[in-house]
Structures are given as C-alpha cells and as structure tokens.
C-alpha cells in the first residue's frame, strides 16, 4: 500500500480535559465500586450442622493422610490406612447413612446448591453490568469524533471497531475515537487497580478473565449433585493403592551429606 501521507489534524487541546480524563476517572471509580460490590455481595459461609461437617472433614482427613503419607513411618501409616479404609467402606462418616443407594439430589431442587449457584451468578452480574453501562454511556456522549493518534499503526480491520462513530473511510486507522480509549483502559488500568485495591481484587480479575476466557474449574468436591458415598469409596481405593515411602528413610545420610560440619 503506498506510504499513506502522514495525516495531522489540528485538534483542540481541550479535548483531553473533557474526554480522556472523565472516561479514565469513571473507569477507575467503577472498578473500585465493582471491587467493593463483589466484596459486599459475597455471601457469608452457611452454617453447617455437625453431621455435614463431620462427613466433609473426615474425607478431608483421608485426603490429607494420602497426600502427606511421606511424613509418617511405615507402621503408623499402614495402621491409619487400614482404619480409614474400613471406616470409609462401612460408610461410618456418612451424613445420612440410609440414603447410600439413591442418586444425589437434583442440584436445581437442592436448597443449599441454589445458594452456591446464586453466588456465582452475582459475581458474573457484577462483571457484566458496569461494562455494558459504560460502553453505552461512551457511545451516547463521546462518539462521532477522533481524539488522539495512536503511536503505532494498526491494520484496517481495527478501523471499524476503533472508529465506530466516525464515518470516514480513508482515515488512517491510527486515529482513535473515545471507544478505543475505553478498550485501552480496560487492560491498561490493571496496574492501577492492583495498586489501589491490593492485587487480588475483583476489578482486575474481570480484565484477566476477558483475555483468558479459561474453562470453568473442574468437578467440585461436596458441591451440589455429588454423592458423598461414592467419594468415600473412591478415596478408600486411592488410599489402598498408595505405595508408601517415608521421608525419614536415609534422613541421617542426607543430613550428613548436606550440612557441612
């Protein structure tokens, strides 16, 4: 393509005061608002009765023993393993032992399952609503003109996105309308949010999710629609299959070799 002549349009410096900074400030404030909104909306953990905690923690205990089996000596590990396997298979820790056979409650009807899903929905809402609001606000007030020139050239197909309101075909795509400044701010403001709100805040997560779109987490333990009895049996099996090696084997030789006197 022929070297496009360098287009320089004289712009009124006032543009910055009334466009750039309001958008940036509004975005920073909505980020902070979103962070505190998600913090407030986070529902307190629900009180569980003793049986439910007993069931969960007994399984966690089994998983711990399997995970950290290397810390135990062989006799103590084998003693624990046999005790746990018999308890899991006999269903000693089940919340309601009589319901071993039936399939798990349907998550939709199960009341506490709804609680978990509502929580996730709230977070999604907190992400999406402010986003659309700002976009429509910008399109309503700040469209139809170009405010700044990008320091680096862009391909033509960005033009339709970045110069949405500006109906000129041959304009160099480097010229930016305010909506493109909004896109820049979504990703660029992450360091500012990390700075203002500490690094694991909701505002920056939204941006990270935007560019990652990772798959949702794997199967939840104890989540809705999971049959505890099956989990216990699976855990018993895992425990049985562990071949034990202790971290204590040869610890003296390692010590004498490692630490110089």
């Amino acid at each position: 393509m022929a070297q496009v002549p360098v287009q320089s349009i004289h712009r009124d410096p006032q543009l910055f005061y009334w466009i750039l900074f309001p958008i940036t400030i509004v975005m920073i404030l909505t980020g902070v608002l979103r962070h505190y909104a998600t913090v407030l909306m986070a529902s307190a953990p629900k009180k569980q009765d003793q049986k439910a905690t007993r069931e969960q923690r007994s399984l966690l205990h089994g998983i711990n023993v399997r995970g950290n089996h290397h810390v135990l000596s062989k006799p103590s590990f084998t003693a624990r393993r046999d005790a746990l396997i018999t308890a899991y298979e006999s269903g000693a820790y089940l919340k309601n032992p009589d319901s071993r056979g039936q399939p798990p409650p349907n998550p939709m009807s199960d009341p506490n399952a709804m609680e978990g899903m509502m929580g996730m929905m709230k977070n999604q809402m907190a992400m999406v609503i402010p986003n659309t609001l700002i976009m429509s606000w910008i399109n309503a007030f700040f469209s139809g003109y170009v405010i700044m020139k990008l320091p680096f050239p862009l391909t033509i197909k960005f033009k339709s996105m970045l110069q949405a309101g500006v109906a000129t075909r041959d304009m160099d795509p480097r010229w930016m309308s305010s909506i493109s400044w909004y896109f820049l701010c979504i990703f660029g403001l992450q360091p500012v949010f990390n700075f203002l709100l500490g690094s694991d805040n909701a505002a920056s997560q939204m941006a990270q999710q935007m560019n990652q779109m990772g798959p949702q987490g794997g199967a939840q333990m104890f989540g809705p629609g999971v049959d505890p009895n099956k989990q216990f049996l699976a855990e018993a099996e895992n425990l049985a299959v562990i071949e034990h090696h202790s971290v204590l084997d040869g610890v003296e030789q390692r010590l004498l070799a490692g630490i110089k006197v």
Partner: protein
Amino acid sequence: MVICILASPIIVIRSFGASRPQAQEASNTAMTLLSKTITAFGSLLLAHACYSAREHTALQSIRAATAATLTSSSTAATSLPVDIIIETIISTFIILLGLVLGTRPLRPLEWRVWAGKIEREGEEGFTDNAGAVDKDYMGNPFSVLESRPNFVDIRKQRKEFAEWVQKGDGKQGQ
C-alpha cells in the same frame, strides 16, 4: 500546559503508596525515605521534560503553520531537541532506580532457608526497608500448634504470673 503538569504526578502518586490515606495496605510499597526522594526528583525532572517537549511541539506546529510548509514535519522523534531527550532518559532511569529501591525485601523460597531465618533472626529477618516488621510476619506459623491459644489455661497462667511478680518483688526487694 496544565495538563502535563497534572499528568506526571499520576506517576508520582502511584509510586507513593504511603502518602495516600486510602492506599490499600497490601499493595503500598514500604519505601524508605531515600527511594521516595529519588523517585520524587526523577518525577519532577520527567514533568519538566514533558512540559518542554509539549512546548516545543506546540511552538513547532505554530511556526510550521505560519510558514505554511506542511512538509517540514518529519517524524516527531528526530525534531525533538537533544537536551529534552537526554533529560527524559535520565529522569526515567532515576525513577527506575527509586522504584527498584522501593521494593520490599524478598523472602527465601526454600523451606530450610526460610525456617532457618525465622528461628535464627526472629523479627529482624522480616522487616521492610523502613525497619518496621512486616504485617504478615507471625514468627513460626506452627508455633501456634504447640502454644494452643484456644486451650489456654488462664487460671494457671494467672497463678504463675502472680508467683513471678512475688519472686520478682522478692528479688528487687533484697
């Protein structure tokens, strides 16, 4: 012109965690006085460079407009006078130095080294460069397993303390 003066403090404010009351404790860098002054000086220099660059391009575009020779504006970088370029680069390095000095001391990764540091140095090993002990330092995290605060036998401790005071008085008394 007001703009660029206003714009550069954004950098200054963002690097000065402590000065803003609302700055989240988790992210503010506990800078010593030294790194703050270095960053402040660098920021001033940068603001000045930004101001003069701004003036220069404004002047140049006016002169270009009056002389009606639109072809003269080659790429902006080369036409910037060399003193502004040098000033910008120097101020960038000064702020860079200030920011790096402002980072909190790192903590060892290996368990052996980290545990040794806790046991050997206690609180001194975990101070930020301003000397204050880090907020999340709590000694050996597993010592709570031995001291068991939830099971504290307060009556025994009160008795021991009373005896210690008498013994203490007894000793000071002689």
